[in-house]
């Protein structure tokens, strides 16, 4: 059994990444099912907006963990709904705070925000964080992710967000230092706007902005620590034996290495194995062979598992168990 697939330090997090249509959902469901059968309490979460985890299990899923078999629970996150709910909540908050909202037209800003670039990535990260925060309820958490591009950006976010948070904390500290100095001479200062009086905070513990910044940093650090810890996280790439998925996997491998996120396994899915060949298929099989050789030379220190193309679509628990057995290994 591969040690990076089972819990070592608390719970284990597995991310299945790959190009669209290579079989991420099936592979992750298969792995989750097999791990659950081995006695690990497993949660599989689909954060892919094009949900098909339910289709693989042949069940309706929602945003609450649903028991599939013993030890295996599945859920699907509806990102669009999450984003809407999240913005709504924030808007309420803001309206309450800004009495003079109409003056600077923040309402318009909110309308625009839900279409702002990157909001989906942030919402996905938020969703992952929430699940990880309750991670101790599980032995293993499997994430079925959206196609590589989005997932890589989501996984890179914690580090980028940390840089932002640190820089903003720096500027904020400078502001508070100035305020403190002025306060020492002038005494406590008030800030009056639209007839409302606010005290100007000068202490880090008093300043709501600083508190929020620090809280945010803490939350992001929590996620960052988990996804960069090889004892907690493993990324598994799923790909087909073709050149384009190979290039994409290579890029993913490089950028995950850059962000120090442990990339451990490649599942080569849908390998054609035929005894009698027509000439057209022969070309395809030759190309496949070339890719298989390339993979071995390109990904050092990464395990590779081959899964053949089956005659029928692998759906339902029996099929999943068969594939899962090959991935997990005994």
């Amino acid at each position, binding site marked *: 059994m591969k040690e990076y697939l089972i819990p070592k330090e608390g719970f284990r997090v597995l991310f299945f990444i790959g190009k669209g249509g290579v079989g991420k959902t099936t592979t992750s469901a298969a792995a989750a099912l097999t791990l659950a059968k081995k006695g690990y309490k497993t949660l599989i979460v689909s954060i892919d907006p094009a949900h098909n985890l339910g289709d693989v299990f042949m069940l309706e899923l929602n945003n609450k963990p649903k028991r599939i078999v013993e030890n295996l629970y599945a859920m699907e996150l509806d990102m669009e709904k999450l984003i809407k709910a999240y913005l709504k909540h924030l808007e309420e908050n803001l309206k309450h705070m800004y009495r003079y909202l109409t003056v600077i037209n923040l309402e318009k800003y909110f309308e625009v925000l839900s279409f702002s670039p990157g909001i989906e990535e942030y919402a996905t990260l938020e969703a992952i964080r929430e699940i990880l925060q309750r991670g101790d309820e599980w032995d293993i958490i499997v994430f079925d992710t959206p196609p590589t591009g989005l997932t890589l950006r989501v996984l890179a976010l914690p580090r980028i967000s940390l840089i932002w948070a640190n820089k*903003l904390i720096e500027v904020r500290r400078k502001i508070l230092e*100035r305020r403190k100095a*002025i306060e020492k001479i002038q005494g406590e200062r008030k800030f009056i706007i639209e007839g409302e009086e606010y005290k100007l905070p000068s202490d880090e513990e008093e300043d709501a902005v600083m508190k929020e910044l620090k809280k945010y940093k803490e939350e992001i650090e929590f996620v960052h620590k988990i996804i960069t810890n090889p004892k907690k996280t493993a990324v598994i790439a799923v790909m087909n034996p073709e050149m384009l998925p190979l290039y994409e996997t290579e890029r993913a491998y490089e950028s995950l290495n850059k962000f120090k996120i442990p990339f451990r396994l490649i599942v080569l899915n849908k390998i054609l194995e035929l005894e009698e060949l027509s000439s057209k298929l022969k070309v395809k099989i030759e190309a496949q062979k070339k890719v298989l050789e390339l993979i071995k030379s390109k990904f050092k220190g990464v395990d590779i598992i081959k899964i053949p193309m089956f005659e029928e679509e692998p759906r339902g628990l029996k099929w999943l168990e068969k594939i899962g057995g090959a991935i997990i290994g005994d």
Partner: protein
Amino acid sequence: MFENLKAFFKGFFSAFKAQSTEYLEFEERELENVFALVLMGSFVGIPSPPTTLVIRLMPHMVREIYVMQRRAEEMDDIFGEIAAMFEIT
């Protein structure tokens, strides 16, 4: 008489106090302006920090946004302001 004298000294010293923190307050305002600008940067094409972080900070940014708006209005005469601060006439 005594009351008047007290009021005079109070005014006298507070003028000194105000003068002594003038530069500091200018710096503070500028930093607050920058802080708000960075957070709302997407409006003017500055790469913006994580959206989640921005919207979480917004409710507490009443003053900074107010300062930013005022700065934007005064922007046309920023040299005038600096000149006034250094008493260049």
